[in-house]
């Protein structure tokens, strides 16, 4: 008998229902500051998907996420704050930002992807340092140490999210689109080529994969996702400053991806939300929070390097094995 191929796995279905319930419940129970942090978590999640594509699929450890978030945020801020004497509507500005980010990340990808694994990682650290020192110093484009304030709010078809709770729905929609996109990329030729490169570059080359171009495209996708997150961040907070784009910040995105499970769409979402929200939930032990976070990262790598989703899948496997055993036992007796 042939198993009917299901459109959605049961675990996926459960998770989707859970997410749906949460996205209805959360805006009802929280507002103001805690809602803002939640929204930030969703924005960071979009950028973390970029890390997931680069590190999870391509196996390339890149710190450049914050550089491209900066590209997105500052481009949005320049077009939509009126500091150059003109002000664009948010939607066209967003499109222009995406185009700019695509071009910049593609060109940088062409340059940086010449380098192999560790060298590429170092080059991405260097890129973060270069962009950061421009972001906090260069006044005409990036506002210098004061940053840029007065970025106009998001607007689509004449509707503007009035508060953080309405922003939440916008971000949920964006996140759903992005996660479907990334999930799709995993199943295309591009995603499989990236995984092949991660597992064995030489073997991938013998299969006729253009290793260099595939990596460049992966880098571009990661860059565009980060820039999208950056522009959302600019519109959401209506303020951009350089301390969002430091090297320390970029390690956070990698930790978010690793916490949930770098190759798992839900894992990425859970990881970003956990890393961003834990400081809020554990406010009562403020003093030791960062310490716990640091120790937690080490413990995480020791006990579940594939993140929470890895833990979940190995748990479900062992449960299934037990169930099978129990069934077999029942049939025999």
């Amino acid at each position, binding site marked *: 008998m042939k198993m009917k191929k299901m459109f959605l796995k049961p675990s996926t279905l459960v998770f989707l229902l859970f997410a749906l319930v949460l996205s209805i419940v959360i805006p009802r129970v929280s507002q103001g500051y805690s809602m803002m942090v939640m929204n930030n978590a969703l924005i960071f999640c979009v950028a973390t998907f970029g890390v997931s594509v680069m590190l999870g699929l391509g196996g390339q450890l890149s710190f450049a996420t914050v550089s491209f978030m900066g590209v997105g945020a500052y481009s949005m801020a320049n077009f939509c704050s009126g500091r150059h004497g003109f002000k664009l509507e948010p939607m066209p500005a967003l499109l222009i930002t995406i185009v700019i980010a695509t071009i910049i990340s593609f060109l940088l990808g062409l340059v940086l992807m010449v380098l192999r694994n560790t060298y590429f990682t170092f080059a991405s650290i260097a890129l973060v340092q270069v962009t950061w020192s421009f972001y906090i110093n260069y006044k005409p484009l990036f506002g210098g140490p004061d940053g840029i304030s007065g970025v106009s709010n998001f607007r689509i078809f004449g509707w503007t999210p009035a508060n953080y709770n309405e922003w939440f729905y916008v971000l949920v929609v964006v996140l759903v689109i992005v996660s479907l996109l990334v999930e799709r990329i995993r199943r295309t030729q591009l995603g499989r080529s990236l995984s092949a490169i991660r597992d064995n570059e030489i073997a991938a080359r013998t299969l006729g994969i253009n290793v260099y171009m595939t990596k460049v495209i992966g880098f571009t996708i990661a860059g565009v996702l980060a820039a999208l997150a950056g522009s959302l961040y600019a519109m959401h907070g209506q303020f951009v400053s350089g301390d969002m784009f430091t090297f320390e910040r970029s390690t956070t995105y990698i930790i978010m991806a690793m916490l949930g499970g770098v190759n798992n769409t839900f894992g990425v979402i859970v990881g970003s939300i956990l890393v961003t929200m834990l400081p809020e939930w554990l406010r009562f032990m403020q003093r030791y929070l960062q310490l716990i976070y640091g120790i937690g990262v080490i413990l*995480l*790598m020791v006990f579940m390097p594939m993140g929470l989703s890895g833990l979940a899948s190995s748990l479900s496997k062992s449960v299934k094995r037990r169930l099978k055993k129990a069934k077999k036992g029942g049939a025999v007796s």
Partner: protein
Amino acid sequence: MDIGTLVSLAINGLAMGMIYAMIAMGLILLIRAVGVMNFAQGDLLMFGAYIAWWLFVDLELPIYLMIPASLICYAVIAIVFMLTAYWPLRNATYPAATVISTMGAAITLKELATIFWGSYPKMMPAIMKKPNGKAAVIKIGKITLQWQFVLCIIVGIVLIYLVFTLFEKMYVGRIMQAAAQDKYAAELIGIPTILTTAATYIIVVTLCSIAGTMVSPIFTITNTLGTIQLRAFAGVVIGGFGNIKGAIFGSLLVGLIESYSTIQFSQYKDAVVFLTLIVFLLIRPQGIFGEKIAEKG
């Protein structure tokens, strides 16, 4: 631009370069011995500086007690660091896991320092000082040099010389190199690799911490002192990945570039250093001296 400024900038640059060289050397020793890129290097430096401050200023130990006490502290930190951030992960299947655990260790060290010593910046007194307590300077004609920078260079040279003698001339060093090159074969001929790894960690942490102690009179000690590790990373890559001589040369170069770039664009000195790194990576990715360890995978 007169000659005095040029020379004193060169000395400042070389002094900072020596600090970066000590971090870089530790980094490469670890990469060679255990294959881990240690992102906690800078925070180990910061922690070492705090410990020196604590022993010297807070507890007011005399210098002949403070030096052995601090060395014992560094050894303890090294062992704890190894047993937590490396040992449980030595057989990890996912290569990024060990790197990320060192990032976790970096956060932990930073927070421990804040919890122990507070977030208020600490001043380490200069080692050579005038009777009125200010940092002493050397004057040769028009050239004015700060003693602290000169001391950094001297201490750096001495430490680097000691590490070289250990690894090139001494029996223990050869054992450690053998264990680093092929752990399995080394174990077969009876080398206790856990001890050699621990020894490597102790050397690395001591190097970093002494570097931290040397810079602390120049900068104040805060928990963000660790960020200078990134420039040491730049030095490692410019010099040649996995090549100690290259890393020292590269770090000195980074120090000089940083120091001279303050003449023209002091705000952008980081950008200058790291743009140099990117240019180097593109023109000569194997570094000035070439690489000794091949890229794995």
